[in-house]
Structure formats: C-alpha cells, structure tokens
C-alpha cells in the first residue's frame, strides 16, 4: 500500500499548488475589498480636494454651478433607515414571538417557511408594489389622516404626495421585516424548552417568560439580526428609488420628497457630465461604504462583547 514516504515529489508539488491556489482564492476577497476602497478613494479625490470636509455637511446639490454636498443624501439615508428600523424591529419581534409561542405548530411552520422565502424576494419587487399600490394609498388615505391627527408636528406637515420620505421608510420596513423575522424566529426556536418550562413552573405568564427567558437568551442573535437589517436598509437602492421622490432637499416633513445616497447614485451616476459631478458621486458612494463598514464592524464587536458577557455570566 502506498504510504507517505513513497509519495513522490510531484505529488508534494501538486499538494503545494493546491494549497497555494485555494489560498489565492481566499485572498481574492481581501483584494476585492481593498480594490473597492481604493477605487472609491481615488475617484473621490477631486471632489474632496475641491470641497474638503465641508462636503459632508453641505446640503448644496447644484450640478449647474458645480456645488455638491453629501448632507441631503446622508440625511435621507439615515431618516429612511430609522423609520424602517423603528417599525420593522418591533413588528419582526412580534411576528417571530407569535410564530414560536402562540401559533399552531403547523401554521407556524408554514408561515415561517413563507417568511424565509420572502426574505429572498428581490427588493425591486417591494419598489414596484410601493409605487403602483402603496403610493396611491398613502396619498389618498394614510397621509391625510396623519396630517389631520398629527399635523401639529412638523414631521407630518405639507401636501400629501404619496411618494416621499415616509413612504420610502415604510417600504424599507416591509423589505427588512422578513429578514429580521426569519433570523429572530430561528434564534427563538433554539431556546431550550427546559428554560421556558422552568419559567412557567415558577408562575411566569407567557409574555414574562418570553421577555425574561427567550428574548434574553437569544439577545445576541437578535441584536446581530437587527444590525444586519440596518446595514441592508442603509444601502438599499431599488425599494427606495421608486418612491422617495428624488429631491436633494432636506425637509423637516416626512411627507416631502428626499433622496438617499443609493437613490442619488442610481439616478445620477450614468449622467454626471462633469468630472467634479462624477467625483462627488463617488464620494457619496465612499460615504455609504464607510457607513455600512462602520455599522458592520460595530455589530461584529457588539455581538462579540455580548458573547463574552454571556460566558462570563455563567
């Protein structure tokens, strides 16, 4: 039987080649990341050179006069994502808890499977639905009511147009919902039944048991899911571009049109006719890239810290 000593030099070489090949492929990922950072930085140089750090705080966007600033796009990105998360996170938790604790097992399995599949539906579908179905609903029914009841807040003032920041935030919420729900549901399903039973055993209600035991046990996974959902919402293009109204203005009202970095890029990248315009768009992309990176790194360390705390607790 052939053994290691008999294996020839050629086989050693083949093994080495294999190892090098696989290592090279894994380095591709790092090369890509570095490449993206490099290209974004290199192409932003002109805009950053011309505007400096002012670019980040300026809300100007006038291609005719070559004045650009990131503020309106960044504002829109953050506001639409905030709306999305404020709505999606509680709703996802509610749906996940419902599926795991309340619903009949067969129904829960069916609906749970459906939600997981929904998480894979391309976001352009949400954009389509938003534009063709939801926008009219918003303009004719939802926004007028909000304007009447809550119109004392600057958030809900102004003419209802159906498209705008609020609609974009709501569509984003719907898009992120299945994803966070699916992960939360998986996390809750992993809670050992014995923990829940002991909670019930000492007289806790279902809600107390859920909050005290299941949600706490699954904190880490849930927080991770929320962070990931946030990251996705920040960079989402298609769901938002159809309904945000494409306006480079910062407005106090959620009824107004706005822009996110992603929608600005989608609308204007192929059309920027002067180098400074294109460079400004690259800088916007760099800002978005930076935001999502910061978020993902923060998520990574937060989750790792929770992990350490948990193992420390026991």
């Amino acid at each position, binding site marked *: 039987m052939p053994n290691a000593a008999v294996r020839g030099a050629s086989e050693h070489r083949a093994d080495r080649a294999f190892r090098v090949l696989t290592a090279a492929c894994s380095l591709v990922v790092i090369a890509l990341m570095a490449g993206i950072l490099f290209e974004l930085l290199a192409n932003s140089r002109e805009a950053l050179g011309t505007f400096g750090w002012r670019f980040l705080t300026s809300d100007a966007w006038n291609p*005719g006069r070559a004045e650009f600033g990131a503020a309106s796009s960044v504002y829109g990105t953050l506001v639409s994502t905030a709306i999305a998360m404020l709505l999606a996170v509680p709703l996802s938790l509610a749906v996940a808890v419902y599926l795991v604790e309340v619903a009949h097992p067969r129904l829960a399995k069916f609906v749970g499977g459906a939600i997981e599949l929904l998480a894979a539906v391309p976001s352009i579908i949400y954009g389509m639905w938003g534009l063709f179905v939801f926008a009219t609903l918003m303009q004719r029914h939802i926004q007028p009511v909000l304007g009447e009841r809550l119109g004392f807040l600057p958030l809900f003032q102004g003419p209802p*147009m159906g498209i705008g920041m609020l609609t974009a935030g709501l569509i984003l919420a719907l898009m992120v919902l299945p994803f966070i729900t699916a992960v939360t549901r998986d996390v809750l399903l992993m809670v050992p039944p014995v923990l829940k039973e002991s909670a019930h055993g000492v007289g806790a209600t279902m809600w107390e048991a859920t909050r005290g035991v299941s949600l706490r046990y699954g904190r880490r996974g849930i927080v991770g899911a929320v962070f990931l959902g946030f990251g996705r919402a920040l960079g989402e293009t298609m769901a938002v571009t159809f309904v945000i109204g494409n306006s480079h203005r910062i407005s106090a009202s959620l009824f*107004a049109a706005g822009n996110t970095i992603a929608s600005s890029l989608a609308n204007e990248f192929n*059309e920027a006719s002067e180098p400074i315009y294109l460079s400004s768009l690259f800088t916007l992309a760099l800002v978005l890239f930076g935001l999502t990176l910061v978020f993902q790194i923060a998520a990574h360390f937060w989750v790792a810290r929770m992990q350490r705390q948990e193992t420390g607790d026991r």
Partner: protein
Amino acid sequence: MSMRSKAVLITAALVFALSLTAPAVAVTLNGAGATFPEPIYALWMSKYHDLTKARINYQGIGSSGGIRQIKAKTVDFGGSDAPMKGPDLREAGLIQFPMVVGGVVPIVNIEGVDAGELRLTPDVLADMFAAEITYWNDERIATLNPQIALPDEPITIVHRAEGSGTTWIFTNYLDKISPKWHETIGTGKIVPWPGGVGAKGNPGVANYVQRVDGSIGYVEFAYAVQNDLAYVLLRNSAGEFVSPTIESFQEAAANADWANADGYYLVLTDQPGEGSWPIVGATFILMQKEQDDAATARSLLEFFDWCYTHGGEMAIEKDYVPIPENVANMVRETWKTELACDGKPVW
C-alpha cells in the same frame, strides 16, 4: 464528471454558442442620452432595423448622461436637447447636429380636467413651478379658467431628477419670461426646484403625474399624447392661447436660423408668431470628431442620413418637426469636413 465541471462546461458552451450566433452583417451601434426624442428615435431605429438589420441601441438616460457618455467614449453617439456652445464643443472634440424638433408641454393631473382645457399664462406657469402659487384654486389660476371648478388642493411639482435637456428647454423659457425665475432659479439641465418630486426621464415625469393627484409636470409632447395626459394651453408672445400641435411647433421652428448657429447652437423658446408654441426645442446628436473605426462611423451616419431623408413622415406622425432638407445638407457638409478617422473623412 462532477456536477460543477459539467456546469462550467455548459456555461462555456452557451457563451461560446451565443457569441457565434452574431450574423456577420449585424452591426450594433450604441447611443445614450435625451428622453425627449426617444419616442421618434425608437420608431426610426426599429424601422431601420427592419430594413437593414443594423441594430442601434439607444438608452434614454437624460441629456447630461448623453453628453457624459459620448465624452467618455462609452457610446458611439450621444443625444442631448441642451446644445453645447461652440467653444465647449471644440474643446471636447465633439460635433453636434440637430436631429428633430419637438415641443415641451406642461401636464396636469386634476380631477375632471382633460387635455387642452386648462389655460395658463407664462407668469402664472413660472410662479407655479417656483412654488409662489401653491394651491390649484389660487385666484390667478381661477381667473384664467372660469369654466373649471379648480379643487382646493395643493400643487405638487413634478420635475426631472437627473440632468435633462427637457428641463433645460423648459427653464430656458421660464427664465426668459419671468424675471423672478431668472433671479432665483435660472436655467440649466438641473435647477434648484423649490420642492416637489423628481422623476427619471420624460417617461418618469409622465408616470408620476399620472399617479400623484394634483400634480403638474413638463414633458415632450409625444409623451403627453401617448399616455393621454392632460396638457395645458399656454399664452404665447403674441398674446394668443395656443394648443400644442405639430402646426404650432412648426410655426415656432420656422424661425430657426440654422445657418448662423455656431455648432448649430440654437434656442427656440418664446418664438414670435401668432400660432407659435412657446416652448419648442431641437434635440441634438453628439459625436466624437475623431472616429476610431471608419466603418462604424459610416454606418451611424448612414442611419442619420436615412432619418433625414425618410424619417420625416414618421416624425410628423409623432408630432415632431423634421429638420428641413437645406439644414440636413448643411449637416452632411459638417460630417464631411469635421468627422475623420486617422485623418480621412468618413462621409
């Protein structure tokens, strides 16, 4: 053979087969730019393809996009309704020539108001788009339209989100007739609109106006017709309320003095004439002076030549004014003298 290798082989075979199926005669030419002329360009390109099998792929991404792509040479020709000035053209190494003339019309979405019913004067129009007039039942609109029951609803402005020649033509007109507009907003492919929503392309504006109650926008006339949108009657410089029709466009375009236009730079807004439509503009094709491939350049010019000689009827059908024959001959001369490949003329 493992599943993966099989998959790779099948993919490779598919790609290879596809790249082989290109018939030797088919040439694909790429253009991008203004959506203003897209309805007539698409018709011309489709008919030309039926006749000659040549494929001309035009993507409507807005005039700014057209200028950018031709400057970067990522397309063979660009389309723009905002003409470049002579010195800018020469600096960029481009030529431009007019392809067809069209009209920009304001469109509205008001319950019960149909095409050609609402009447507006230039100053009211400008103030509506400048958000100085914010409600439909404003006195100034009402006095012009006593027969319409205007709703007590806010006006939503729909404008272009990207750099647009249509915007350029429209704001050029507003800038001419409204000193306030000239002061605060001005002319351009993108201008600082006071609010409202932005849409992509002429189709996008038409789409949003269809969807948003109480909105007003501006599009090239063909889009208003194609989609049954309620266009507006405007009062022209002669004081007459005119309807956007091929005749009113032609009357405005008849004033065009192409012979004295440096690089064919010409603006046709607010032209004199009893029946002239006040917001008319030409749309231009941009090409690199230095062509990389003589055969490609020639094929492209043959298409444009065909459009000049055979496309007139189709243009009129879609309410575009064709370029007169004498101007087309001027353009052909320009091709001869300005376009070259390795020093040799392509036409």
